[in-house]
C-alpha cells in the first residue's frame, strides 16, 4: 500500500469513485480507501434514476443538470463498459384527486423553474406505459429524466480512475485520522498509515463516523430503504415509475410537499443534531418505485425507516412494497421475487447533501446525498476544481456544513 498521497478518498461508492476519476485528470497521487468492495453499499443498491423532475432549485438542480450533461460524454469517451444508461423520461403516477391537485401545483411551479414537466392524463399515461393499472389517474412526466445501472456505473468510474493512476484499496477500513493544529496529517487504516494533507469524506451514510475521527459533527443519518427484484418477465414496462408520498388524509400543503419527495427548503434553518423525524406506521412511510432493468427483471421499492445501520429486510416492508407494485403494475401479480435487500440513503434534514471544506484544514466532505447517482459526476467535477484550483462550488453555501451552525 502507498504510504503517502496528495488526496485520500474515504469510500468506494459513487461519490468516492467519481471524485477519484475527476481528480485523476489533475494528479496521479490519489488513493481511494473502501472498507468492503466498490459499490457494496448504497451505490450498488439503488434504482439508478438520474432525474431532474424531483430536484430543488439552486445547488440540487444545478448538480443534477450538469450530471445529465456529463453522462453521455463519459459514456462515449471514458467508460470501457456499458452502464445501461437510457434516457427514457421519468414518470410519477397518481391515483387520487388530491394527488392530481398537488401535481398541478408542483408542475406549474417546477415549470417556472425551467424544469420541463408535463402533466399527463390517464390515456397519455397508458400510451407511454400500456401495462400500468387502469386505476391510475395521471402522471407527472419529464422527458429529460434518465436511468442507469448504479453498480455498473460506480464500477465504471472506479475503472476509469484506476486507469488514470488512482490507487484503489478495497477491504481497507479507515480506523482514525491524525490531525495537527486542526489540519489533516494522515489516515490510519487496518492496513497501515497513509500521510496526506487532504481527506475527502465520501463515506455516504457513515460520514458522521468519519467526522467523529476529526471531532466534527456531521449531521448525516442512515435512512433505510428496502427493495426487492423479481424474476425476468416479458417486456411490459419501458421506464422507471415513481409514486407519491401522499396519504388520503394529507392536507393540500402536505400533499404538495409529499409530491415526488420534495422537501420544503425554505423552512427554518436546519441545525446540527436535528434528528430524523419520527415515523409512525411503516405503511405511512412507503413510496412506490418500479424499475425495469435492461433484462426485464423488475426492481421494486420502498419503505423508509430510521433504525440505524440495520440491514435486515422485513416481511412487513416487503409485502407493503409488493402490494404497491401490484396495484400499479397488475402484471406483477404472479411474478416471483428472487432477491431482497436493504440499504441506506445518506439523509440530511433539508434533503441537500453536505459538500465542501470544513473548519478542519484539508478535511473535505461530500456526503449526505439522497440522489448521488444523479449528483455524482457534477459533484466530483466541482470537487476537483475546488481541490486543485481552489474554485468555489456552485451554490456552495447551500451545501456547506456551515448552514447547520452559522
Amino acid at each position, binding site marked *: 500500500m502507498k504510504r503517502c498521497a496528495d488526496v485520500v478518498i474515504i469510500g468506494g461508492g459513487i461519490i468516492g469513485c467519481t471524485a477519484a476519476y475527476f481528480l485523476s485528470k489533475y494528479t496521479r497521487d490519489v488513493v481511494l480507501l473502501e472498507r468492503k468492495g466498490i459499490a457494496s453499499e448504497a451505490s450498488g443498491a439503488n434504482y439508478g434514476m438520474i432525474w431532474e423532475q424531483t430536484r430543488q432549485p439552486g445547488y440540487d438542480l444545478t448538480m443534477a443538470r450538469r450530471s445529465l450533461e456529463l453522462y453521455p460524454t463519459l459514456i462515449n469517451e471514458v467508460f470501457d463498459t456499458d452502464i445501461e444508461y437510457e434516457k427514457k423520461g421519468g414518470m410519477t403516477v397518481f391515483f387520487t384527486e388530491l394527488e392530481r391537485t398537488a401535481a398541478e401545483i408542483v408542475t406549474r411551479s417546477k415549470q417556472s423553474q425551467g424544469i420541463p414537466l408535463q402533466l399527463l392524463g390517464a390515456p397519455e399515461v397508458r400510451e407511454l406505459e400500456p401495462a400500468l393499472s387502469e386505476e391510475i389517474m395521471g402522471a407527472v412526466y419529464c422527458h429529460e429524466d434518465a436511468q442507469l445501472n448504479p453498480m455498473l456505473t460506480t464500477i465504471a468510474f472506479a475503472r476509469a480512475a484506476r486507469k488514470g493512476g488512482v490507487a484503489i484499496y478495497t477491504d481497507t477500513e479507515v480506523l482514525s485520522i491524525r490531525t495537527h493544529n486542526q489540519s489533516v496529517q494522515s489516515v490510519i487504516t487496518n492496513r497501515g498509515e497513509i500521510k496526506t494533507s487532504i481527506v475527502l469524506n465520501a463515506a455516504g451514510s457513515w460520514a458522521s463516523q468519519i467526522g467523529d475521527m476529526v471531532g466534527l459533527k456531521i449531521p448525516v443519518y442512515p435512512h433505510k430503504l428496502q427493495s426487492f427484484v423479481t424474476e425476468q418477465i416479458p417486456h411490459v414496462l419501458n421506464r422507471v415509475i415513481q409514486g407519491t408520498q401522499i396519504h388520503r388524509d394529507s392536507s393540500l400543503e402536505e400533499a404538495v410537499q409529499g409530491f415526488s419527495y420534495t422537501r420544503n427548503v425554505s423552512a427554518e434553518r436546519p441545525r446540527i443534531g436535528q434528528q430524523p423525524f419520527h415515523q409512525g406506521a411503516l405503511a405511512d412511510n412507503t413510496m412506490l418505485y418500479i424499475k425495469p432493468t435492461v433484462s426485464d427483471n423488475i426492481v421494486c421499492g420502498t419503505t423508509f425507516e430510521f433504525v440505524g445501520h440495520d440491514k435486515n*429486510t422485513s416481511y412487513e416492508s416487503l*409485502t407493503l412494497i409488493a402490494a404497491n407494485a401490484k396495484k400499479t403494475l397488475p402484471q406483477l*401479480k404472479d411474478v416471483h421475487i428472487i432477491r431482497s435487500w436493504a440499504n441506506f440513503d445518506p439523509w440530511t434534514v433539508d434533503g441537500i447533501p453536505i459538500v465542501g471544506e470544513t473548519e478542519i484544514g484539508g478535511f473535505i466532505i461530500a456526503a449526505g446525498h439522497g440522489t448521488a447517482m444523479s449528483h455524482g459526476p457534477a459533484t466530483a467535477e466541482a470537487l476537483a476544481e475546488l481541490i486543485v484550483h481552489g474554485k468555489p462550488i456552485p451554490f456552495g453555501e447551500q451545501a456547506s456544513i456551515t448552514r447547520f451552525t452559522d
Partner: protein
Amino acid sequence: METELAIVGSGPAGLAAAIEAAKTGVKVTIIDENPRPGGQLFKQIHKFFGSEKHKAGIRGIDIGHELLEQCEKLNVQIFLRTEVWAVFDNGKALGLKHANNTTEKLNTRKLILATGAIENPLAFPGWTLPGVLGAGATQTLMNLHRVLPGQRVLMVGTGNVGLIVSYQLLQAGADVVAAIDILPQIGGWGVHASKIRRLGIPILTSHTIKEAFGNNEVKGAVIARVGQDNKVIPETERTLEIDTICIAVGLSPMAELAQSAGCQTIHIAELGGWTPMHNKRMETTIKGIYVAGDVCGVEEASTAMEEGKISGIAAAESLGYLQRGKAKELMKERQESLNALRAGPFATQSKLGKEKLIERFHKC
C-alpha cells in the same frame, strides 16, 4: 402463524429432520413448494445402493412413503404448494406464499433449511430449444407425471444421474442414442454403466455436444470428440438425429435462502459449489439456522437423511426437548453412520469436501 421448528424442503433431509425432532415433542412445520412431499425421492423408482442399514435395496419412492407415514403419526404439519420466499430476523420468521397466492408470515424458534440442489445447465448453440431438458426434470416427467419427453434421446453426462436416467428412459420405451461425457472416463458407478452398455447404449467418453438444431424443437445434435485440452478435434463431428437432449452435468446446492438469511457460504468444488458453512451439529454461522442434505453439499439420499436427523436432534436439544447427554449420544450414533456412508470408495470427494467445510466453519 407460529411454530417451534420450521423446515424448508420435504426431501429425505427435511423429512428425517422432522421425524427426529417431532419424536422428542417439538412442534414441527414443513414447507415445500411441490404438490407432493418427498423431494427427489418420489421419482427414484430404482433400488438404492449401499449397506442395508442405509436402506440399500429399497427404492427411493418406498423410503419416501415410509418417512411420510412417520411424519403423519407424529403430527408433523406439512404445507405443500407453498413457497418460502424469504427468511427474516435471523431465521426467526419466514415469508410464505400459499397455493392460493396469499402470503403469510411464519414465526419460528428454529429453522432447518433442507432445500436440496438444482441441476446445472450447459450452454451450447441451441440450448434453449424445446427438447433440451435436465436429466432430473426428465425423471420427474417420466416417473411422476408419466410423460415420456421424447423418443430418441442424447444423454449429456455420464455421472450416476445420467446413467440411471438413461436406463429409466429405456425402461419407459425411449431410445437412448448415446450417452456422452467430456471426460476421458465415465463419471458414475461401473454397475450402472455396464447395465446400460449391456442394453446397447453407446457410452462415448471424451465427447461433447457442439450444437442442437431444429426450428421450433430439437431435430438433432452435433457431437464431437475432444482432445486433452477439452477442445473439439476438427473433423470428428457427427450428427445425431434425435428429438431430446438430456443434460446431466451435475447439481449445485440451492443455497439462496441460506445466503439471503445471512449464513456465510464457501465455495467447495467437491460439494457442488457455494455451500452454507456448518458445524458437526449442522448449525450454520447464524445460531438457530441449520442445514441438511444436498443444500450443504450434493451427495445422496442416504447422507441427506443422516444429516437431517442430526439437525433435528440439534434443534430439539436447543429447544430444550432433549437433554444434553442424550442428544450427544444420539448424535454420535448418527455421526458414525454418516462416517460409514462416506467411507465408501465413491464418497471420498464428498468426505473431503465436508471436512474442508467444517474446518472453515471453525476458523471463522
